[in-house]
């Protein structure tokens, strides 16, 4: 299973980025290989418009099973993400990726 996080850095102790569209990085955890890979989203961060849909496109390409983010994607991004077979959890802000992952495992995050 692959889990995607919106984050400000690329390691477990990096803070979550509460923003979806303008997130600095997308971090992907593969629980079979137990590896963390990251994708720089800086190009999208600089978009004037449509950051949400552009990031949704990236998520689509990474095709995770679960997405964990902070504020929750905006309505456009949600509409795009709903096309994918993926569960989305929000309200993981003010914490590290590791903490967000723990909260997700305990079922403490809000599913969208």
């Amino acid at each position, binding site marked *: 299973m692959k889990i995607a996080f919106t984050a400000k850095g690329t390691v477990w102790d990096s803070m979550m980025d509460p923003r979806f569209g303008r997130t600095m990085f997308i971090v992907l955890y593969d629980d079979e290989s137990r590896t963390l890979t990251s994708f720089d989203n800086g190009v999208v961060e600089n978009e004037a*418009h*449509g950051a*949400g849909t552009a990031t949704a*496109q990236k998520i689509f390409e990474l095709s995770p099973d679960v997405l964990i983010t902070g504020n929750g994607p905006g309505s456009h991004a949600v509409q795009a993400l709903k*096309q*994918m077979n993926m569960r989305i959890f929000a309200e993981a802000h003010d914490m590290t990726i590791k903490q967000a992952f723990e909260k997700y495992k305990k079922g403490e995050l809000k599913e969208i």
Partner: protein
Amino acid sequence: MTNSPARIAIASGKGGTGKTTLATNLAAYIAEQEEVVLVDLDVEEPNSGLFFKGDLIHEESNFKMIPQWDEPKCTFCGLCQKVCNFHAVLQLGPTILVFPELCHSCYACSELCPTDALPMISKRTGKLSDFRINNLHFVESRLDVGEEQAVPTISKTKQYSNENYAHLRIEIYDCPPGTSCPVIEATKNADFVILITEPTPFGLHDLTLAIETMRTLKKPMGVVVNRYGIGNDAVIDYCQKENITILAKIPNSRRIAELYSSGKLIYQEIPEVKELLSNILDYCLKASKGDIE
């Protein structure tokens, strides 16, 4: 001499300086003598209508053009997604998604599509209403919730007024605040721009930005100082230094604030304001015809 109306735009660098108060009072004052049209171009927050209760004489939807996916024709080449600078078209596997609110109607995806699988269709973005109160015509547009692009609606609203009220002598535009694209669109075909400000440091700062903007557009302009008496003389000094005419100083008064707060027209209660409006109007009309400067 041309027959088209004199277009007077009322703008300000920041909100809350009395733009709508001036626009509604000026329009109502003119309407005592002749037919006039007031166009509310602050399409995100149209407020002028709160001051008038008139008969709705016409209503129509505002539209913009967006692409619509024609699935059978699509070869999933990915070009549409690639050419859209606004990320309004996405290809997610075997699906093309169009996000109407993000679309700028540039037609690139539609016209560059090799199989014509994205024809342009029209989509409602809001509503235009035209009211009449005796001699006063009042036109406003309101964006639907979620619509963010004010500029096409502003342009459309002006066009409606230009087409329907070309026979009048005066058109008044109540513009959105600020100095960004909506203001540019609202003022770009005005014959004269009135900038309204307050004699305070905030007022002065925002006025300098507004003046800079109008100079970029090469618009003839004048300044109305609202709530004159508070603050300091820095706005007056600045206008003199920059050689910008001060059209009127509307005195600071609690009575005016109270009338405004209840949605009442001010000049009807305070004769001094009526006289100021008359002066402002005379100057604007002369300046619009190019009789000044």
